[in-house]
C-alpha cells in the first residue's frame, strides 16, 4: 500500500497527521440544532499531503489522525467510533474530489480551476455526507446510544447536514486555494 514512501515522506505524513489532530481540537460548532457537528480545519493538512504525495498519502494521514483522535479524545469507545468514522469518511471524500478535480482540469486558467475545485468538492462532500447520514451514521447513533431526535432523520439531514457540509466545503476549499499555490512554491 505505502511501500513507495521513503523515510522523508513517512516523517512528513506523520507530522502532517499530528498537525491535523491538533487542528481537529480547535473546532467550532456552527449548526445550532446539531452541536456535535463541528467545523475544523483538520482537512487542510490532509489535502496538502494528498496534493504533494498522492491519494494513498492523504488516506494514511486521515487514518492516523482519526485513530489518534479516537484513542485519546473519543475514549476508544464504540459510540465515539461512529463520529470518528464519519469525519474520516468526510476527509476521504474531500481529498478524492480535490485530487481528481485539480489533476483533471489542467488546461483551464488557474483561477477557474480553483473555483471549479471548490464547487465540485463542496458538492461531492455534501452529497456523500447526506447519503451517509441518511442511511448509516444517524441510524447507527439512534440504535447504539439511544439518541432521541426531536425530528426525523431526513429532516435532520436537510436542516443540519446539508448546510454544514456546504459551509465546510466552501471554507476549507477557499483556505486551501489561498494557501496551497503559495506553499507548493516554497516547499518542493
Amino acid at each position, binding site marked *: 500500500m*505505502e511501500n513507495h514512501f521513503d523515510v522523508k515522506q513517512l516523517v512528513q*505524513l506523520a507530522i502532517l497527521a499530528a498537525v491535523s489532530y491538533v487542528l481537529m481540537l480547535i473546532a467550532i460548532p456552527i449548526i445550532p440544532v446539531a452541536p456535535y457537528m463541528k467545523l475544523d480545519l483538520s482537512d487542510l493538512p490532509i489535502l496538502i499531503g494528498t496534493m504533494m504525495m498522492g491519494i494513498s498519502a492523504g488516506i494514511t494521514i486521515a487514518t492516523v489522525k482519526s485513530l489518534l483522535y479516537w484513542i485519546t479524545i473519543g475514549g476508544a469507545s464504540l459510540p465515539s467510533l461512529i463520529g470518528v468514522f464519519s469525519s474520516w469518511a468526510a476527509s476521504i471524500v474531500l481529498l478524492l474530489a480535490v485530487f481528481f478535480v485539480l489533476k483533471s482540469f489542467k488546461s483551464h486558467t488557474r483561477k477557474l480551476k480553483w473555483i471549479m475545485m471548490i464547487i465540485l468538492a463542496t458538492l461531492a462532500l455534501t452529497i456523500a455526507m447526506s447519503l451517509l447520514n441518511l442511511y448509516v451514521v444517524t441510524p447507527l447513533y439512534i440504535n447504539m446510544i439511544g439518541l432521541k431526535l426531536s425530528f426525523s432523520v431526513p429532516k435532520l439531514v436537510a436542516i443540519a447536514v446539508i448546510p454544514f457540509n456546504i459551509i465546510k466545503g466552501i471554507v476549507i476549499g477557499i483556505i486551501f486555494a489561498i494557501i496551497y499555490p503559495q506553499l507548493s512554491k516554497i516547499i518542493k
Partner: protein
Amino acid sequence: MDNFIFGQYSPGDSFIHRLDPRNKLFLTILIIVASLLIHSWVSPLILLLVCAFAIQTSHVGWHFLIHGIKFFIHMILLTSLLQLLLSRSGKVYWYFWIFNISSFGAHIAIMSFFRFIIAIIISMLFLLTTSPIEISDTISSLLNPLKFIHVPVEDISLTISIALRFVPTMTGEVHRIMDAQKSRGVQFHKGNVIKRIKMSIPIMFPLFINTFKRAEDLASAMILRGYTGNRYRSSIRKMHWHINDTIVFIAIILIIILIFLLIES
C-alpha cells in the same frame, strides 16, 4: 500545556499499570462484550465489582475517575430515563399522558444503564492506566499478522509513533504562531465568520512551513543515523507478559465463564 491533550492518562506504577497493554486491551474488550450479552440483574453487579476491584488496585483514585465519567453518567441517566418512561410492554404500573412505567421498560432501562456504565468505566480505566505510546505499540502488535499479506506494519507504527510524539510540539507551535500574530495586532476573537476565516490564514501559512521544516530535520537525522524502513527493528519499549498477566487473564475469563454458566443459563 504539553500534557493537557493526553489528560486522560494518569501515570503511575500500580499493579494495573504494570500489566501488559495487550492483555489489558483484550480483557477490556472481553468485559464490554460480556456486558452486552448479559440479561440477568445479578451479572452486571458482579462485573461492577470486578471494575471496582480494578479501580482500587490501579490507584488512579475514585474521585479522579468519577470526575472523568461524570458527563457520560448524565447522558446515560437521561437515556435510561427516556427508555423507562417511553417503552410500554409487560405489566404497566403507572401512566400519565404518553409516559408510563412498565415492567419491560424498567428492565430495559436498568440493563442499558448497567451496560453503559460498565463499558465506560472499564474503557476509561484502560485509558487512565495505559500511556498513548503503549496504546500505539499495542495497535501495531495487533497489526503484526498483516505482515504476511505485505502490509508495511513497521511503517504504519513508525508513522503513528512520530505523530503521537509531535502532537504536543505542534500544539505549542500553533500557540506560538497565534501569540506572534497577536503581538502584531491580529485580533482572533473578533468579527464575523468571514473575518475569522481570513484570520486563520496567517496561522496556517507559518504552521505548514514549520511542519515541513521539522519533517525535513527529523528525516535528515533519521537517514544520517542509518534508518531504513521495513526491516525488523528493536524497540526501546518492550512489552512483557508477566506471571501477573496470566493470573489476571485466567481470573477474568473464569469470572465471565461462571457468570454465563451459573447466572445467565
